[in-house]
């Protein structure tokens, strides 16, 4: 699969004695949208955190857009510049305004002129529908607004790939909707996305593939309609039964 933008093969990772990821093989095509689900502790967050080296893997290879992740700092830097990430806890910088959150990396990493970085940031803030909050501090915003700023902040670096690590798990129900809308919008614009989430509605609406993980392994992967209607393994059936019944 030479046209894949992410290529993971034979990936193994341990936290001390604990084997978190076991023989993961995964290829992601450009513009593909993948939803990863599974019970907590199944290794799904760890998997996407390996893609931008927030976690180091011990065995196997991860190739992102032609560059293999190694101990080479230059390679890690160039991969991180192309991979954006959105966290469960938003992780906005509380001492900077919303606008400064969005311009910091473009100015210091991409070396953009301030005015250009600000214009671009305002563009993305409009896209996530909060341009009027640009001069406030993160502490003054609601959770949903903060998560949308976090998405805009990532987009300001023009990533080719966006990773989402449970982006709506820390939000109130009515705020989940506004964040998901932004993510659907992004998916429709052709962004390559890997999303760890339990929002099955989002999965069936936008995902090209759904991956189910348990115990550090990929148990099942399929297109959403097949995945939800005809799950193959018992483990998947049990999980879907629990998550869809409530």
């Amino acid at each position, binding site marked *: 699969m030479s046209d894949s933008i992410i290529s993971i093969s034979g990936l193994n990772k341990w936290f001390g004695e604990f084997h978190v990821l076991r023989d993961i093989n995964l290829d992601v095509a450009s513009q593909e949208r993948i939803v990863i689900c599974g019970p907590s502790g199944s290794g799904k967050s760890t998997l996407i955190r390996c893609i931008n080296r*927030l976690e180091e893997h011990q065995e196997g290879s991860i190739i992102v857009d032609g560059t293999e992740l190694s101990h080479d700092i230059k390679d890690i*830097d160039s991969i991180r510049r192309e991979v954006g990430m959105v*966290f469960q806890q938003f992780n906005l910088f509380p001492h900077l305004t919303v606008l400064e959150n969005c311009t910091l990396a473009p100015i210091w*990493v991409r070396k953009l002129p301030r005015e250009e970085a600000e214009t671009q940031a305002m563009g993305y803030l409009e896209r996530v529908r909060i341009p009027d909050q640009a001069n406030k*501090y993160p502490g003054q915003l609601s959770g949903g607004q903060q998560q949308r700023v976090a998405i805009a902040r*990532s987009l300001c670096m023009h990533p080719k790939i966006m990773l989402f690590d449970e982006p709506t798990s820390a939000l109130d129900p009515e705020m989940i909707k506004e964040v998901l809308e932004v993510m659907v919008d992004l998916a429709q614009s052709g962004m390559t996305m890997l999303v760890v989430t339990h929002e099955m509605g989002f999965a069936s609406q936008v995902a090209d593939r759904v991956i189910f993980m348990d115990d550090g392994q990929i148990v099942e992967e399929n297109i959403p309609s097949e995945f939800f209607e005809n799950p193959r393994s018992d483990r998947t059936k049990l999980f879907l039964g629990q998550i869809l019944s409530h």
Partner: protein
Amino acid sequence: MRVQRIWTDERARGVILQLLLILALLLVLAFIVSNTVANLQRAGLASGYGFLGSTASFDINQRLIQYDSTSTYGRAFVVGGLNTILVACLGILAATIIGFVAGVMRLSRNFFISRIVGAYVEFTRNVPLLIQIIFWWVVILALPKVRDGISFGDTLFLNNRGVRLPAPIIEDGAGIILVALALGIAITWQIARRARKRQDETGQIFPVVRTGFALIIGLPLVTYFLAGSPIDFDIPVAGKFNLKGGFNITPELVALWVALSTYTGAFIAEVVRAGILSVGKGQTEASGALGLRPGLTMRKIILPQALRVIIPPLTSQYLNLTKNSSLAVAIGYQDIVSIGDTIMNQSGQALEVISIYMLFYLTISVLTSLFMNWYNARIALVER
């Protein structure tokens, strides 16, 4: 309003309790004052600050201003106060540098670095300061005698009489070097402004710190040589019994300085470490995910947030260092307490001397606190 209601009324209760407290304090104060006055009268001692104008008739070997045994007690106090301020300023400077470096190093992923710094912090924090001051003093006194002293390139000498450095002798035309230094600072300031503006406009990043260093150090140096070396150095020369020339730092000052800065530095290291750890791991991860290198993450994300946590306890450490410098009395460094002790013995004005101590330390401490609180307010976080 009924009487019972006053006791359950939050505000009325607060006012009454405070009035009672003030009354109690006044009674205690009145007792202390009347008792002291009575005792002084019985002992036939005159009170008041008139003694400050009398001749001191003792020598002080460590002095920043003109002083000899014919000077007054008042002047002796000033000499002592300046000596305290000298060691406090030197100590705060060194302790801050040691503390920040050690605090960051203790968080290093390198096992040896973090362990070595950990050992330094634990050892220094857990041995009483007085013992450390005496330890360093003994170390310096145990250095070889002047004749067999250690010399560094025949310009800096280390021996049991302290440290001797070349003393600058200012000649005609030396002023131009000061002008060059001022120019270097001014140009650096301008460059920093221009660099910020240029980065805003074009995005290019200019290495301001490196250039600034080169200018501030280089410009006066070049001027010095171009102007035909207008500052001469009186380099110490080994004589028969003692070093001749140069400028001597006493063993007491060196010992006190080293002890105060390593001791307080260890506490500051812990404060800095706690401050950095108080910034969540998510901040480092988010910054890394955006492509910022660790150095930039530290400068732009971690430290600005950590400082909010670091400043208040750092202020306490500065105040501690200043007040701890009064332990100088143990090794005979002539700080305000040491000199005050002598004055107390000679004049018998114990209360007055102690009141001067208190006023002196209080003034310095309040000034330090005011400055640090102002700085802390400047970097406070906006929420809601």
